[in-house]
């Protein structure tokens, strides 16, 4: 890749830097921060945070050169970066008047910390940290039957009160179907009911995520207060330290919250509700395929099931056959040994007497010896023979 985009980015950064340094000087002097530090000649549409503008410009100009995998991965880093820069803006603004002097009272400290952290949840939930809910919707989108993007449209405001509406819809949806398409009507009514249940479940889940966010902010405020009141703990001296402290608080709150029965029930309700919708959807799709004389998922499942059953039997029989072969070999070898021993016992005394039938003895001995020699040196009882193994391999 050429260096041009980075050069542009660096140049752009320099311009923004000047605006930002001016703002920083304003912090030190206790002067009022410029209303719009990003408003430079370079960018007429700069936002309140010039660093984010610079990053946006840079990312827009460079991301096209990256491979898909790099772009996706790096996009995550850039999202985190933006959230990080927004956080720095929050803190810079909140602490600008406090630099160099400690708050006189606990109340002042509390106000200061609250002011610094009030937008924290929004910063992260609006940009980088939409998961687990947004990831859930993404994952569901990738599952077929009913397109998940339809579910994406089910994002609902947290303050939406659906109980009255739901009651009325429930009544309508519970009305019996009539006429020739009665069953179809009932199926569609059921689907709508299940969708309503899923919507309600996802709202509950969304509320729980929001509660985790609020608790995290409170925990973060407590942590900052602890640091301020402690003589042993070093104050946070970089934005990265602030960020890490925030993550620690979030994870700690999250870990406690999601282990509660309340959360487990919310989680389960959301998953089960979606599966119920998908299952009915699958049945409806299958029925439609059937009317078009197309193979359905249910038919394929039946075939796969039978196929697996046959394969299991085939493999069991192959194994049994291999075991039988091995046992047969063992028996043959044992018998060969017994014959050999018997012959040695019966023939040996005869050999002492000189008779003209001696050549016949040699023939019998040779045959037994040949039989004994054909047996494997060691028979592993449970291991399949090479032929059996080859048979079990799938072409």
């Amino acid at each position, binding site marked *: 890749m050429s260096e041009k985009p980075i050069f542009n980015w660096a140049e752009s950064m320099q311009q923004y*830097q000047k605006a930002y340094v001016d703002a920083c000087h304003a912090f030190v002097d206790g002067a009022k921060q410029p209303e719009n530090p990003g408003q430079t000649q370079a960018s007429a549409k700069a936002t309140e945070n010039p660093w984010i503008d610079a990053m946006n410009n840079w990312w827009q100009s460079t991301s096209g050169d990256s*491979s898909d995998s790099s772009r996706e991965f790096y996009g995550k880093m850039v999202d985190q*970066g933006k959230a990080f820069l927004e956080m720095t803006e929050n803190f810079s603004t909140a602490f600008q008047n406090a630099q160099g002097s400690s708050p006189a009272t606990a109340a002042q400290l509390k106000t200061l910390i609250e002011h610094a952290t009030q937008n924290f949840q929004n910063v992260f939930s609006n940009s980088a940290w939409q998961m687990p809910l947004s990831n859930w919707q993404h*994952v569901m989108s990738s599952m077929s039957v009913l397109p998940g993007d339809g579910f994406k449209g089910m994002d609902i405001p947290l303050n939406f009160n659906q109980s009255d509406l739901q009651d009325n819809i429930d009544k309508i949806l519970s009305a019996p179907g009539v006429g020739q398409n009665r069953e179809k009507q009932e199926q569609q009514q059921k689907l709508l009911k299940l969708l309503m249940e899923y919507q309600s479940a996802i709202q509950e889940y969304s509320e729980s995520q929001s509660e985790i966010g609020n608790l995290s902010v409170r925990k973060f405020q407590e942590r*900052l207060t602890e640091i301020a*009141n402690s003589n042993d703990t070093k104050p946070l001296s970089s934005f990265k330290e602030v960020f890490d402290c925030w993550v620690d608080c979030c994870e700690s709150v999250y870990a406690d919250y999601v282990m509660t029965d309340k959360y487990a029930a919310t989680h389960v309700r959301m998953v089960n509700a979606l*599966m119920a919708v998908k299952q009915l959807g699958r049945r409806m799709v299958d029925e439609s395929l059937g009317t078009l004389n197309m193979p359905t998922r249910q038919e394929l499942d039946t075939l796969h099931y039978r196929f697996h059953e046959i394969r299991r039997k085939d493999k069991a029989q192959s194994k049994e056959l291999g075991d039988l072969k091995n046992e047969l070999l063992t028996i043959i070898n044992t018998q060969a040994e017994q014959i050999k021993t018997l012959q040695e016992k019966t023939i040996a005394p005869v050999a002492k007497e000189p008779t003209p039938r001696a050549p016949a003895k040699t023939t019998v001995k040779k045959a037994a010896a040949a039989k004994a020699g054909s047996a494997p040196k060691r028979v*592993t009882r449970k291991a399949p023979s090479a032929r059996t193994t080859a048979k079990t391999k799938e072409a």
Partner: protein
Amino acid sequence: MLPITIRPDQATEEILNFNKKLAEGLENLKGIDSISTGVTPFEIVYQEDKMVLVRYKSDKKPTNKVPLLIVYALVNRPYMTDIQENRSTIKSLLDTGQDVYLIDWGYPDRADRFLTMDDYINGYLDRCVDFIRQQHNLDKINILGICQGGTFSLCYGSLHADKVRNLVAMVTPVDFKTPDNMLSSWVQNIDVDLMVDTLGNVSGDLLNWTFLSLKPFRLMGQKYLDMVDAINSPERAKNFMRMEKWIFDSPDQAGETFRQFTKDFYQENKLIKGEVRLGGQSVNLKNLSMPVLNIYATEDHLVPPKASKALKEHVGTKDYTELAFPGGHIGIYVSGKAHKQVPPAIGEWLRAR
């Protein structure tokens, strides 16, 4: 005292550095052409359906005459054990003189939906064990099971004790209902029948969502920001990309196996009760009469230490050893500390038996 003391000049410098690193890092990423999935050479020695049994090659001749078969989980891909040159569990095990085999289960598709745990354990796994026994003309071999593969190995060992000489379990869940098991608490009331009947195979993305949701702020946020500090090194950038690839490389789960594993193990905790049934036989951990080495990670968020350590109470063997690794579920394979401690300890333990 103020809880945060960042001077304006420090703030400016920190942000400027951050942006510079981010820009330089992208250049490093662009230099990465492809991401390898395993570094140690191997040969495929046996294959059946989508399952592949590989044998790793080494410059040194194995000193242990009894081969070691690694049984990985169905979740995620086994190249985690061989992720990079200086962080390869496989390489380290070869260095201890082991003759290492590994089962790669592959990526099940919808035609594999009806594969059961019995198919995996008494079928594929058993045939792999038989193949190795035959190749080496041995009655018994050593087995190392990892995570869910560890649970499979325990089941296998208890059903086929006559074929297992030594059993090593790594970060293996045994008691699925310890109070600190977040994953378990979430799945207790999931309608697994509804899920499998609806989805057929359970998608790897869905499992990934669940795993990432265990620590969302670290795994989906902080990790990427931390990487800004490391990505200026091409080598570190590449290593990070390898891990990213592995994390999101999640095979779908054969529906029937997922059904049994979730219901019997997570929801009903049947393994420690001796109530799991495979191929018409009961799995009883008391049948594990061979020496057992149980390795767990003290910071494991997927398989809490208690879930693994429960094995001690249930095995039949008197030769039971535990090894605690101070790290997490993934760190036990990829951290530098792990490579100095874990494979040598396994090698030593096997050498003594």
